[in-house]
């Protein structure tokens, strides 16, 4: 308590609760996703991205089953 780290985590937590209210406002039916406090709530969004989101993407080929509806010739 009263440390700089505590203040930072407290701020992250407060920001998280604001995010939850916004995210949950779209949840209109029972099966909809719910957002709230979990083990990541005292991370800033930047920290979360840096620590837990580590994938980069290669462009993949479109699956050949696609029917475009166009015909040639």
């Amino acid at each position, binding site marked *: 308590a009263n440390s700089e780290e505590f203040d930072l985590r407290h701020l992250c937590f407060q920001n998280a609760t604001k995010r939850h209210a916004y995210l949950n406002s779209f*949840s209109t039916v029972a099966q909809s*996703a719910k957002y709230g406090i979990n083990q990541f709530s005292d991370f800033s969004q930047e920290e979360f991205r840096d620590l837990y989101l580590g994938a980069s993407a290669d462009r*993949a080929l479109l699956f050949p089953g696609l029917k475009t509806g166009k015909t040639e010739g």
Partner: protein
Amino acid sequence: LPAKFDWRDKAVVAPVQNQQACGSCWAFSVVGAVQSVHAIDGSQLVELSVQQVVDCSFQNEGCNGGSPVQALKWLKQSKMKLVPQSEYPYKAKTGICHFFSQSHGVVAVKNFTAYDFSGQEEAMMGHLVEHGPLAAIVDAVSWQDYLGGIIQHHCSSQRSNHAVLVVGYNTTGDIPYWIVQNSWGTTWGNEGYVYIKIGSNVCGIADSVAAVFL
């Protein structure tokens, strides 16, 4: 296609793992797919070494991130056999690649496919049923706050930043959804799983989807 399908029902999906504070999701998704396909092919389900892929897949950047497709390219080209997790345990840190004799390894990747299924999620369902769990990439920024339920909003396609393992789907309810294994432990989401609406490429789940062949 069946209205619902879940590879966990066939006991070929290993328990949810925890990558901890290491950007190794790309390795978890690839190893998850490999170990499931190995079990589907008739072998016992063995948890394989994620740390081996983190340390040795040199085109990727270990805990600083990587691409499932790059990891699969490396596994195919090097013909390196993955060893059991018990022999090369996960440390949540990038380390020096440990080499084992080929006789020590369990399985090597013969080939893989990587497709963009956007607009064709029904074909992706067929791919899952035919080939086993699929390694996919997603936009998971909003997953920081996820508790459970079916994700329909708050994430985009073409902005992927996380890798996961798609293990099943369910189209019997009002909202059809993918069943996706994450690697943030069992206390996150639905006991470590996340459900994503099928049909509009929510979170970019269909953007880059890989199947492995052993």
